[in-house]
């Protein structure tokens, strides 16, 4: 057996270098997402699409009440600061702001170094991958995630979530997670791999628009854009450029202060790869 010891110290750390090391130079792709909060109506379509695409188990009222739910993509609803909702103490005078929150696929992800068995690690296409069958459920990663977007299979959800014949509707492209395993948004990795296969089959390079995540596909207002940051011509990299948001820093210096792009918790130096565009307010 060649190189049993080959990857003792390499592999896990290659693709998750922090900013101090100047980031990683070896990525093949760098998949990223941008969400325009001004277009997001909070309609839940993306969230439900995620349930359908990624075999997410519904857990029922009791487990939801104990916060053991499994929604990879959740739509949070906030009323505006500071006066929570309006200048008028009597009532709101403008709408809420909705925030679709899913795994931010950080380039310096805090969840990766702490996993004892390297079940979560950074792939060559800059994805924050989660290997279900390697996970032993120490749940350290979830503790270390500032976004609280890692969901743990506290129970064996499959029998209750997919009573026959519902299991016939499971997506065979990715596995159903068992009890005691951590899971999270994967940027629809099965679609990414599928698009790769198709591209290989047709003997061409992956091009912008080949990969469409389930949430992006269904978003009725097209608030979600997904693509490869290394491909300079792709829509997503244009958006990052236009918003003057840079990777590899935890403090954005924009010459144009009016631009809307920002990354949540980037000051923690974890390099989130989801770019949010601020909601616009008439005042």
């Amino acid at each position, binding site marked *: 057996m060649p190189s049993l010891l080959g990857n003792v110290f390499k592999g896990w750390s290659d693709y998750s270098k922090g900013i101090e090391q100047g980031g990683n130079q070896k990525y093949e792709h760098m998949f990223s997402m941008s969400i325009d909060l001004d277009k997001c109506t909070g309609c839940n379509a993306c969230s439900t699409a995620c349930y359908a695409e990624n075999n997410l188990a519904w857990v029922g009222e009791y487990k939801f009440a104990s916060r053991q739910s499994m929604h990879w993509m959740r739509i949070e609803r906030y009323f505006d600061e500071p006066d929570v909702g309006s200048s008028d103490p009597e009532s709101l005078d403008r709408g809420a702001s909705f925030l679709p929150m899913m795994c931010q696929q950080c380039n310096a992800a805090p969840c990766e170094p702490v996993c004892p068995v390297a079940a979560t690690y950074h792939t060559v296409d800059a994805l924050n991958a989660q290997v279900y069958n390697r996970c032993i459920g*120490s749940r350290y990663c979830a503790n270390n995630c500032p976004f609280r977007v890692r969901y743990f299979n506290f129970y064996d959800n499959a029998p209750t979530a997919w009573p026959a014949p519902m299991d016939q509707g499971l997506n065979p492209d990715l596995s159903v997670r068992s009890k005691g395993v951590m899971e999270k948004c994967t940027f629809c990795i099965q679609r990414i791999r599928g698009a790769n296969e198709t591209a290989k089959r047709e003997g061409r390079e992956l091009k912008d628009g080949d990969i469409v995540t389930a949430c992006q596909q269904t978003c009725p207002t097209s608030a979600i854009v997904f693509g490869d940051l290394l491909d300079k011509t792709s829509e997503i990299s244009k958006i990052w450029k236009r918003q003057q948001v840079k990777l590899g820093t935890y403090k954005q210096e924009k010459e144009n202060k009016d631009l809307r792009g920002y990354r949540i918790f980037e000051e923690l130096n974890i390099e989130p790869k989801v770019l949010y565009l601020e909601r616009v307010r008439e005042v």
Partner: protein
Amino acid sequence: MSENHQHLTNEQVKDIDENIAWAKINNDVLNSMKNPRKGYWVALVLSALLFGVMIYAEVYQYRNGMGETLLNTSHMWDLYISSFVFWIGMSHSGTLLSAILHLVHADWRKPIYRFAEAMTTFSLLTAGLFPVIHLGRVWNFYWVMPYMSDRGIWPNFRSPLIWDAFAITSYLTSSVLFLYIGMIPDLAICRDNTTGWRKTLYTFLSLGWRGDDRQWRHFRFTYLMIACFLIPLAVSVHSIVSMDFAMAIMPGWHVTTFPPYFVAGALYSGCAAIITLFVLLRYFFKFEEYMTMPILDKVCKLTFVIAMVWTYLNLIEFSAVWYGHDIPSKEVLIAKATGPYSIFFWGMMFFGSVLPFSLLSKAVRRNMKIMFFISIFLNVGMFLERWMIVTPTLSMGYHPQGFNVMWPGWVEWAMVGGSFGWFGLLFLVFVKVFPCVSMYEVKEMVYHRKRTTYADVDEMMELHSGVPGPEAQTQQSGGA
């Protein structure tokens, strides 16, 4: 003996009465290992029951899933990890007494270090349970250990959990070694004074100890070596445990002072536990002559000092957070003090930092009953401390959506209680199978005290107790 001690009896001033006959030491200790009384069996059964509850809880959790612990998406860790840290902390007492005090030649440790050392080992065995039972897929726990397989995959050496695994295993090994080596001369004594299966056991364990000079020379050297080796290990183990938190980025965990803070807390809880067991053993085994008031007095003073160190580090942490710029951390701190967990937080502060001041009074220090309860409360405080490290952070964190309060379910409490049962079980078996007071070192101690009191020791000994001098004694019964 200074003047202010004049009005006190020997029993109260002297660490140990130098006139104890050595054979008496042997007999007392050996008797403590024989024919257990009713109380012993009751204690044994109780611990067994507690442990049984733990087993049941584990099976229940295994079949129904981790969710039964009421952990949730924000609180992925709770009492399991707290108890883990708590038991690791307990384990530091033995090392402190046996190794550190051994090196600084504080010979008052001699009558009490043996059970402290045993406590170290057993609390490590207990602590080791928790990282395993808290796993979602417990049947894969061995994946954290690096082992060769044709899959060629390895654990993630950057993860503090891996460091834990290494630290704890090596600490366990060396402390078992330390306990065993230190016991060899006593085992020889037991071998010479027992029959039946015990004799077989001790014969095997005492490795043919004859107590001649050469063996003693090697013994002393080895013992010293392991002691030196053990101290940095003890410090490092709890530093590494603290890194489970310090290496995370969560507010309230990401604290630079955690390693010393944890070590101090560990020694603290360890000393408290020693006092508890001290009182119990002294009471049950009639060890008044060996576990004397002055020794307890010294242990209490030690405890007080450590308590103050711990308090100091605590305050350092608070002030660092308070004057720092990290808003979430500050929020967590405020939530600790005012939030739903505040009662436990203040309980920890009271038991950990206020209660120790009672140790300043000699009357308290020398009152067995009071000391027993005080020591228990100190450890309660320490347990709360661990809980207050783990849970409030998770109930706040960075993202408001994750803010929530979580109370552990019965499964977790059963596991925690059960862990005490398991510890008690081990310890109870130990005291009946192995000498929980080091006979040969007590003899040394007595001998040295005689030296300080009388001019010509050997004659005096002939005079007083009619037993031959130390060397002869050594030849006879394998003691010092």
